[in-house]
């Protein structure tokens, strides 16, 4: 198993964020993490990146503790565009190079292997031409690709993507979708936190529905039902439900 999260409890000063949440993801899969704002998606991510230590339960990544897995550069986090200060004076090349920091010495002086990894990552996301541009001068989609390149350069086996399809152009969306399928082929495990149910249906193998705890988890075809979605979103977004019903009507013979 790539990710084993068992019976996680997290609370912030008495406010419960996660309650008995369990999740197991194998190597080589794409999993959608779906829930409302405040349902605990980002808390679960924080448990996997070591930002939050659950008060009960345990997380194993590649059979190791989170801290050990981090030392082996196993976990990469691709932030949402909103979470990044776009006016930061830093170039695309430098951002992607940050993916290599964990593997460098204390002074973070890049060696030729690091430069090669960065160059390859930039080629894969088709940003090599823009490597010297400040990160703030890129479009939303290009910026997203830069952060994906950072995860590639890091060589992580677990990718955590926060709203990857929010505000990206068609070219980026296609490119990213293709890359994510390649990563799955290469054995990476990809966890996508999203509101975008359409994309979950399109290319997630597995789905986790959460609201403080894991409401449902399993293969997309069996878990992604209107009933489960109503449970996840408290029955609120009727338009989402209509879409889901229509689609499941199409796919089920």
């Amino acid at each position, binding site marked *: 198993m790539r990710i084993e999260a068992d019976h996680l409890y997290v609370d912030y000063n008495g406010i419960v964020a996660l309650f008995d949440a369990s999740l197991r993801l194998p190597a080589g899969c794409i999993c959608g993490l779906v829930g409302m704002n405040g349902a605990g998606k980002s808390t679960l991510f924080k448990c996997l990146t070591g930002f939050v230590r659950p008060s009960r339960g345990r997380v194993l990544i590649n059979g190791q503790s989170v801290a050990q897995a981090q030392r082996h550069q196993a976990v*990469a986090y691709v932030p949402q565009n909103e979470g990044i200060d776009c006016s930061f004076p830093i170039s695309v090349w430098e951002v992607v190079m940050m993916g290599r920091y*964990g593997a460098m010495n204390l002074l973070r002086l890049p060696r030729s292997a690091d430069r090669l990894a960065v160059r390859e990552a930039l080629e894969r996301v088709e940003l090599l031409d823009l490597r010297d541009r400040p990160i703030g001068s890129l479009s939303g989609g290009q910026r997203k690709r830069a952060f994906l390149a950072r995860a590639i350069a890091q060589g992580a086996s677990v990718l955590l993507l926060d709203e990857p399809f929010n505000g990206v152009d068609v070219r980026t969306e296609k490119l990213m979708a293709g890359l994510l399928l390649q990563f799955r082929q290469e054995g990476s495990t990809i966890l996508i936190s999203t509101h975008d149910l359409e994309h979950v249906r399109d290319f997630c193998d597995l789905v986790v529905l959460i609201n403080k705890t894991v409401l449902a988890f399993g293969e997309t075809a069996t878990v992604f039902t209107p009933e489960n979605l109503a449970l996840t979103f408290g029955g609120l977004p009727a338009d989402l439900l209509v879409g889901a019903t229509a689609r499941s009507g199409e796919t089920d013979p």
Partner: protein
Amino acid sequence: MNWLLEPLSHAFMVRALLVSALVGGCCGLLSCYMTLKGWALMGDAVSHAVMPGVVLAYSLGLPFSLGAFVFGVGSVALIGFVKQKSRIKEDTVIGLVFTGFFALGLVLVSKVRSNIDLTHILFGNVLGISLADIWQTLLISALVVAVLLVLRRDLLLFCFDPTHARSIGINTGLLHYTLLSVLSLAAVAGLQTVGVILVVAMLVTPGATAYLLTDRFDRMTLLAIGSSILSSLLGVYISYWTDSSTAGCVVLVQTGLFLLAFLLAPRYGILRGYGPQAP
């Protein structure tokens, strides 16, 4: 050339120029991180909170930097503690803690028997700096610069994307407190030149000026250090020739440079596009 050379015939002026240039360079480097991290208020807080430490250290005969450092780091720890344990927002906690410390400093100055001059703490006394204080400032600045240079990439990442830093196994908590300790030390050094009240300018303005001029971090640090040293030297000269407050002159030159960048910066100045060679 006389205006340039005459002040150098006084030993106190040579000392003042050297110390303020050193402190300027050191605070200029740090100011880049303060600007990018958005820690201006934190800088203000720490610089005010060191005051009781300075008074106590002087009255106990200890090096003033030791007392200042203890109280600087103490105030930061207290801010973190109160924020974590209560529902009060961070900026409120900062405002609350540093004024409390500052008030304590004021009371101590008026009550503790010592030969400290309140105005020297509040507004600096670089023209009358003692040799012992010069050594302390030298040591502190060297330490600050060394830490910032060794950790420059890590600190940059910490300011830019702490989540990524964390997920590749970098100890962000340690970086957080290292940067705050460096801030306390730099505030102590800056105290010498411009005093408690204006230290925050040394810790913010050069970084802000440089930030308007470039999109490259390396260039930003060089510009910040350069503008900060220039302001310090020019400020001390102007204060000599106009017989006015040294701290005021240094900070005023810094503010002037910022204003120039604000108006004329090629890409981010508000007058861009009005020049003859505008694109």
